[in-house]
Structure formats: structure tokens, C-alpha cells
């Protein structure tokens, strides 16, 4: 990130906190404490239980990202390079892709049990389709002539993956992750409201909101917002490194 980018991000943050404080002062009700109350509480909480909740949530999202990436990327590449298979599977993907996967929450809980894995699986399914669709598009754009040329240079399967498929799909995978990370955290929030003792969703809804601890509730909200923002910027930073400048093709 360049210097001016950092400055403008800081500026945005200051503006956000200022407006928040202003709104809190104007509303003057317990449901909206200002950042002057919440931020110190947040920092303190992060060293204790809140930090633990934060790590539980972050772990779930990261595991889901990992799971989705290692399954959707090869499948997307395969579909993009095998038109026949793609034609066969495409109608199914077209139907399943726009369905909001969160509605399968109860089914997944029943089938996979009340474990962390069921939550991770649900988020992974959401990210999976995002990656699948963009990687497939990238793989479709790899012309057969390009593959033939590279094979004629001596590339077998492994070298093709290393020098063609991986660099062709990596930026797309990162973009897909970046745009789906918001949805992932939102689904996590819902999934964590039940059948667990740890996670920011549980902390916000069960531990604080339902017992009217609004100040503490906001530290949870801050944690979840931070999780989304951190993931977004981390992915963006990697993406900028991976995608070379001036490459528009």
C-alpha cells in the first residue's frame, strides 16, 4: 500500500470514529455507546475472552478459505479446460450458485453434527462456488494454442500446473476470496449463534446482547468488523503482489 493510500485509510477511520461518537452523543441511549467507551473496552477484551472469541472465529474463516480454495481451484481449472465436462455440470452450477447457502444450515448441522467442522463446511461451501466460477472463467480463457505452445517447450502436467494454471488462476482465486469474505463473515455470525461456546457471533448475541451488556456487545461487533476488514486487506495486499502491473490481457 502506498503512503497516500495509508493516509486516506487512516482518514476514513478517523471520520468513521468521529461520526460514531457524534451519533452516540446525539442519540444518548445505552444501545449506542460511543467509541470513547468501546475502544478501550475492546482493547482490554482482546487480551482476554474477547481475543479468544476472535481467534475462534478467525480460525473458522481461515479453515473454510483453505478448504474451499484447495477444492474449488482444481475443479474450476478442470471444468474450464474440459468443455464437455463443463457442459454437463454447468446447469447444476448455474442452479446452485445463486442459492443462499445459509439456508442449508439446519441440514448441515443435522448431517455433520454439532462440531466446528459443520460451521467451517457451511462457509467453505459459500466460498467454494465463488472460486469455482471465476477460476473456471480464467481456465476457459486459456486458449488451447497457449497450452500446446507450452507443452511444446517440454512442459508436462506438473510444469503446466506450475507455469500456466497456477499463475493463471491465483489472481482470480484471490479476487474471489476478497469479494466473498464479507459474506463468509456474515454467515459465520449466524452460524456461531448456536451450538458453540466460542466465536464472536456467540459473544455478540448470547453473551452480551441477550443480557443487555451493550458496551461489551460493541466490542464483539468491533471484533467481527475487524476480522472482515483484516481479511479483505490481507487478500488485497497479496493480490497486488501477485497480479503484475500493466497486465491487462
Amino acid at each position, binding site marked *: 500500500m502506498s503512503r497516500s493510500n495509508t493516509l486516506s485509510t487512516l482518514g476514513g477511520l478517523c471520520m468513521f470514529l468521529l461520526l460514531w461518537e457524534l451519533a452516540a452523543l446525539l442519540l444518548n441511549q445505552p444501545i449506542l455507546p460511543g467509541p470513547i467507551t468501546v475502544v478501550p473496552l475492546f482493547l482490554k477484551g482482546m487480551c482476554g475472552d474477547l481475543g479468544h472469541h476472535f481467534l475462534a472465529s478467525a480460525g473458522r474463516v481461515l479453515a473454510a478459505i483453505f478448504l474451499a480454495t484447495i477444492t474449488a481451484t482444481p475443479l474450476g481449472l478442470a471444468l474450464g479446460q474440459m468443455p*464437455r465436462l463443463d457442459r454437463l455440470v454447468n446447469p447444476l452450477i448455474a442452479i446452485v450458485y445463486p442459492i443462499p447457502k445459509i439456508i442449508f444450515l439446519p441440514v448441515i448441522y443435522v448431517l455433520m453434527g454439532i462440531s466446528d467442522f459443520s460451521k467451517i463446511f457451511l462457509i467453505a461451501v459459500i466460498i467454494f462456488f465463488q472460486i469455482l466460477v471465476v477460476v473456471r472463467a480464467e481456465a476457459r480463457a486459456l*486458449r488451447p*494454442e*497457449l497450452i*500446446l*505452445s*507450452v*507443452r*511444446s*517447450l*517440454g*512442459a*508436462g502436467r*506438473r*510444469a503446466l500446473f*506450475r*507455469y*500456466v494454471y497456477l*499463475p*493463471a488462476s491465483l*489472481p482470480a482465486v484471490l479476487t474471489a476470496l476478497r469479494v466473498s469474505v464479507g459474506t463468509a463473515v456474515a454467515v459465520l455470525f449466524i452460524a456461531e449463534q448456536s451450538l458453540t461456546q466460542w466465536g464472536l457471533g456467540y459473544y455478540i448475541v448470547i453473551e452480551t446482547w441477550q443480557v443487555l451488556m451493550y458496551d461489551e456487545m460493541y466490542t464483539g461487533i468491533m471484533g467481527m468488523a475487524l476480522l472482515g476488514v483484516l481479511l479483505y486487506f490481507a487478500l488485497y495486499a497479496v493480490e497486488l503482489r501477485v*497480479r*503484475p502491473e*500493466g*497486465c*491487462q*490481457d
Partner: protein
Amino acid sequence: MIQIDLLTFGYEAGHPGGQRSEAVYQDFSLTIGRGEAWSIIGPSGCGKSTLLLLLAGLNRPLSGRIIIDGEDIVRPRPRTGLVLQDHGLLPWATVGENTRLGLKIRHFYGPDGRHSPLEMEIDPIKGEARVQYWLEWLGIAALQEKYPSQLSRGQRQRAAIARTLVLEPDLLLLDEPFSALDAPIREELQRVMAGFHEESGLTSITVTHDIEEATLTGEKILVLTAGENRSAHVLENAFAGAFERRNEAPFLERCAELRLLLGGVPAEERA
């Protein structure tokens, strides 16, 4: 150097499980000597590019054999260079990186005799020197930090040629390498490649649908026909590299002869 023995090849028609369509080659045989420059010409769909891909080891014959240097071709051969009309450069890599690609792939596998020659050079400094040499030779050294999308078609094709020559092939297969280029650039590259052939003496085969190009690039011209090719129709050609004689009567007669062979209408009838 190359021996094609009773080659049979055809593409499957349309759908999976469909009948094999008419063969493009049926018991087709041909011998190509070391150091010769060949051009292959024929109407579209006659299988010229198919033959090149078979020679490159990127297609497998249905029956028959292709032998290069005593070796049955069942996969790409490390010392065969291939340049396609669609340059085949990686769009996300610079010209320099693209030119180095073949060397990287060779280092990736090491000298295994399958993906790279057994007697492969492993010295990265010498490799880089070769990259720079060919970039320079093809006049694109100044462009090595650019991406393919920032180049003209001619420059992209130069990069593709450089990438191939860096691997020091002894056989060069060119599939319509210049047909997407504007006439002056096409001619310039034709001259460059003709000069290269004369200097290096490597075997080269150029596929083209352009009669003049076939006459300029091939000491021997293989004329293919639409439908099944059973026997090789080869013309000895004295005009390869004769750019300055292009407007002379014998050259034009050779072109007219080729046009007739390809099923065209003789000039006097067209008038």
C-alpha cells in the same frame, strides 16, 4: 531426419462416441532430410496444422509411426521447436519471462531426456546469455519488460520465436507463423527466418496457406489436398529465400503452378 511411416490420422466427429470422420491422412509416408527447409501448403481443413502437431508430438497417430532422429514420436521432443500463429505467450508474463519459460521448464525437470535433453546445459548464466542473444537478434531486447498485450502482433511473434530458439532446437516447426501480420512485417520476418535457416542449417517446416510464402520458405513444398491424403505430393523448389526474384517470370510461374495444384483457376481463364 524425419520419417513418416504409413501415418493414419483423423479427428473424431462431433460428439463423444461418434463415428470417426473421414481420415485426413491414410497410410501417408514422407521423408524429410536433415537441414532441409520445407513448406506445407493446402486448403484450410486439409490437415497441414494437424501434420505439424503430429510432428511436434502433440497429437498421436491413429496408426503408423513418426520417427525423428531414430526416435518414435509419442510426446513433444525436447529438440523440436514449435511456433504457432497464435503466439502462445503467457499474458501475465513479460517478454523476458516468456522467453525464459522454456529454460525454466527444463530446470524444473532437470535433464531427464523426456522434457529436456539429456545433455542439457544447466548453467543459468549461459541460459540468460542465450535469452539476451535471441531477444537482441530478433530486435525485441528493448521490449523485454513489456507484457504481450502491450506489443504489436509482429513483436509478439518475434517473442514466440525467441522463446523457441533459446532452447536450441534442431527442428523448427512453424504453423502459419506470419499470416496474422501486415505485409511489410510479414516480409521482414520471412527474411529473418530465411537468413536464420541459411546460417544455422537446422531443419525447418513452415505451414502456410499463402502461395508466395510457401514458395519463399520451402526448398521442398508439400502440397496437401482437402480430404484424404494418401501420398505426399512434393515439389522441388529453387526459389526458397529468393526475395529479390519475386517479380520475375519463373517465380510467378511456380506460384501459378502451385495455385493450380491447390485447385485454383489458371490465370488465363480468370481473365
